[in-house]
């Protein structure tokens, strides 16, 4: 006969759930929410993925995967919550990528980026290095523009190659975006924004649930919320070592 034993006070098993599953997820979700509050999806054209918003399993170290499975075995309600988060990530990522592909394929977008590029190049001077020529990245410029639109980037750091270009034309492209939507009327940027909002909501709920679960586990099993620092022992005195 088999019996399921309940974890005891000070349980190492429960402590490992907290340190290797719950804490990394809380940390990652706080980061996700911070980005989503700015509607920054951290989408990258080269990978066509979100760089800093990931599926739950991707936030867990490979060595800790058994702890995740063990946690879910005893806390099955989180299975659905994790799935809901991951579904929202996948939807938002899919919509962002679809929007990007549509934008890049649209001759009108290419024409507008090229027009902005020509205007920018005609105003810079050879010694004005903080507004460098973008000739060498001209072929990739539509991709950079689309990426920044998807990530709702208002201002880029001064040392980024397209900082000055973006500073000059960001508003025009944002405006263009709404006109483009009306023109196309199918897969739109609005759908990306809606998916980002839905993801933010799910992430906020999951964060709240994980924080609450951590508190419950800490109280019930008397384990600290953070892994206690490892005590490093000093060298063994010579008199004892021989």
């Amino acid at each position, binding site marked *: 006969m088999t019996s399921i034993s309940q974890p005891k006070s000070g349980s190492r098993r429960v402590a490992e759930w907290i340190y290797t599953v719950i804490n*990394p997820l809380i940390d990652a979700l706080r980061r996700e929410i*911070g980005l989503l509050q700015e509607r920054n999806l951290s989408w990258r054209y080269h990978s066509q993925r979100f760089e800093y918003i990931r599926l739950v399993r991707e936030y867990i*170290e490979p060595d800790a995967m058994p702890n995740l499975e063990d946690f879910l075995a005893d806390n099955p309600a989180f299975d659905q919550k994790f799935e809901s988060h991951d579904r929202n990530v996948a939807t938002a990522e899919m919509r962002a990528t679809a929007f990007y592909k549509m934008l890049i394929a649209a001759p009108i977008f290419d024409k507008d980026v090229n027009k902005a590029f020509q205007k920018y190049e005609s105003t810079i001077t050879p010694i004005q*290095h903080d507004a460098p020529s973008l000739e060498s990245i001209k072929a990739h410029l539509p991709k950079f523009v689309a990426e920044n639109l998807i990530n709702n980037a208002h201002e880029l750091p*001064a*040392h*980024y190659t397209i900082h000055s270009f973006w500073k000059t034309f960001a508003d025009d492209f944002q405006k263009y975006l709404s006109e483009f939507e009306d023109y196309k009327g199918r897969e739109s940027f609005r759908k990306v924004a809606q998916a980002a909002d839905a993801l933010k909501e799910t992430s906020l709920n999951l964060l709240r649930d994980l924080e609450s679960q951590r508190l419950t586990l800490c109280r019930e099993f008397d384990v600290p919320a953070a892994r206690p620092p490892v005590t490093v022992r000093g060298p063994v005195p010579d008199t004892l070592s021989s």
Partner: protein
Amino acid sequence: MDSKKLLLIDTGPIRELIAYKAVFTLRFQQLRSDLKFVSENVSYARFGKYVASFQKKSTTASVVAELNRWVRKTDPSGRKRIWSLIYDEFRDMGMEEQLVKLLDMPLDLVARCGPTDVSLLKLAQQQIDSDPVVLTIDQGLVSECWRAKIRTMHIQEILAN
């Protein structure tokens, strides 16, 4: 005539840019202690403007190896995201990366300064026509650059101006 053509960037300044973004954009609070010079918006903007004032930015493969040593000291769960930040930064600032082989570096100098510093010195000498400036937070490298008559800039000088 403006001669700001080539900036050669050492590990320290790159680490400052990455750590700033990690702390303030991605909330990696544990990297806050890595921000030695660029710890708030004003210094980040000033530093960014200085870097942007160069036509080309470049570094060496040895610097990337040193960045790896730094990343390995951080929490394993966040390492992939720190590397993502490094990739983003290199791509977005148009950073070039050059290889300077160990066998092309003077042994005495490597023994004294280490291969990373020497790779930057050597690269500066190879591209002397571009009037390179070596950007660092390492006083030892500043001294070596002076000795080799290579223009150098300590990050503190940028932030103090």
